[in-house]
């Protein structure tokens, strides 16, 4: 069950410019959280910014009762968060949302992350490995300096390949190109992906072409985080047609093929 905790910040550092790792003690959340779930953080007592901000769980230390999130400074809230000193309590609500499933039949799975979208894939990769499922991480960034999650995969010994838009490291191009290449040369039974919508759309196309099952994690503007406000709607397919699903409570993890993208959703 979700709860709200006053979580003591024990570690907070800028990994690469504008990307931060933040670790805090939240035993109840740490105990329950599954890969792909998120926490909703109240960044300040002030009424501006007003709403909580959602962040995927990057890693968990179940013994210590701590949770790490990995975030990028993009606006007012994340800017403020980046100034949060350690040893202060943070108001954290979680765990929220549906987790990734563990494809126990799979032999090898691909984890595809674009930018800060690698956040939920670290904890997932650890759980998959512990279940004896081989994982290969494909991660992309605009340039080598922003490949921030590498150290975590290195730390946990998860094999990974990278792409950068400017070719400063790994394949020059999008991470979806990397995925296309890898699908040609390596076995993949299941795909997990998180990143910008355009990336997720391409991942969906690639997976469906090759008939590979998988799951993607979406983002969206949120208010409540618990399915009450209907603010975080995303169009999904249903038997008969389409409907809006709540990213926070029916997602953020959706099956590949279930989600409808821009082209249908946006003006």
């Amino acid at each position, binding site marked *: *069950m*979700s*709860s*709200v905790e006053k979580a003591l910040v024990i570690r907070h550092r800028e990994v690469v410019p504008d990307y931060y790792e933040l670790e805090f003690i939240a035993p109840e959340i740490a105990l329950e959280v599954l890969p792909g779930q998120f926490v909703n953080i*109240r960044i300040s007592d002030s*009424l*501006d*910014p*007003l*709403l*909580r901000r959602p962040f995927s769980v990057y890693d968990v230390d179940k013994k210590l009762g701590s949770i790490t999130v990995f975030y990028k400074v993009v606006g007012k809230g994340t800017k403020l968060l980046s100034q949060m000193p350690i040893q202060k309590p943070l*108001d954290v*609500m979680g765990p929220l949302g549906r987790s990734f499933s563990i494809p126990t039949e799979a032999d090898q799975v691909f984890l595809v992350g674009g930018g800060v979208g690698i956040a939920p894939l670290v904890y997932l990769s650890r759980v998959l490995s512990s279940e004896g499922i081989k994982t290969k991480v494909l991660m992309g960034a605009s340039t080598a300096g922003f490949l921030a999650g590498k150290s975590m995969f290195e730390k946990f010994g998860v094999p990974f390949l990278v792409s950068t838009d400017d070719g400063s490291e790994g394949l020059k191009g999008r991470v979806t190109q990397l995925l296309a290449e890898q699908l040609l040369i390596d076995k993949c039974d299941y795909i997990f992906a998180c990143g910008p919508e355009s990336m997720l759309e391409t991942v969906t196309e690639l997976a469906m072409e090759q008939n590979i099952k998988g799951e993607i994690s979406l983002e*969206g*503007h*949120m*208010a*409540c*985080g*618990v*399915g*009450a*406000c*209907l*603010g*975080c*709607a*995303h*169009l999904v397919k249903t038997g008969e047609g389409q*409907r*809006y699903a709540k990213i926070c*409570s029916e997602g953020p993890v959706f099956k590949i093929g279930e989600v409808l993208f821009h082209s249908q*959703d*946006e*003006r």
Partner: protein
Amino acid sequence: MSVTDKKTRKKARAQLNLQVNLGGMQLKNPVTVASGTFGYGFEYEPFVDIAGLGAVIVKGTTLEPRMGNPSPRIIETPAGMLNAIGLENPGVDVFIGEYLPALRSRGVTVIANIAGNTMEEYARLAARLDGQPGIAGLELNISCPNVKQGGLQFGTDPVMVKEMVAAVKSQTSLPVMPKLSPNVTDITAIARAAYEGGADCLALINTLMGMAIDVDKRRPVLANTFGGLSGPAIKPVALRMVYQVAQEVPLPIMGLGGIMNTRDALEFLMAGATAISIGTANFVDPMITTQIIAGLQEYMEECHIADINDIIGAALPQ
């Protein structure tokens, strides 16, 4: 606090009266949750004893299921947020068949919130909900920006408001609470029309109509262009309207709009509201309702007020 202190306090609390009568609806306490901000209550069960609330006003219900608006549906603004959900809901039959029994079994005081495209739809919704066990009253959302008739919104024309309330009243034995739009020149005129139509109490306010522009994309942020502004930003406007209506119309008021804490709740009660609703604040702090109920009790103890009804309207001119 010593053990004896705690005991005395507990005893004192037991003697406090928090019960209020909102136009025939008996509420355990004046703290309710606003339609559309608390789902059907279940979503907040990990955080709140929902049966302990004055009432749960559920998400707006229509005759037929509604899909709602495209995304983005919400955006934060300074001390507030805009929403354009578009009344997404599964329709009245699912509400009666699935949600209502579950709420009833939990002992929740339920106020149903209804919306339609025509006056007739409102009347049919009222008829359909009449006699359904477990509903304490009906809130009429006559202030939804989607609902238009003859080019004008129902909620902004006194004549239509009066007719609408009368039409609904004729179909139900439940207390009827029209929820007024703040997007009007004279809120007291609308409130009076609702009174004349037979309303049992009034809820005010719904959201202020607003918008935001995405400077990079050079277009409105919300897919629906316009949205409803809620949260602490609108509190001064909401409070003003409660204060005005409380002086002009002899109906109990459910006050809401930007209430974030106990002091805000007290402001509304003192402005003349018999009960209050918490909306956007639930998103910020999911346990806020419980905290405000406790906060009101503490305030009453400190100020030696035995009955919450004694402070209702305390700030109105004598």
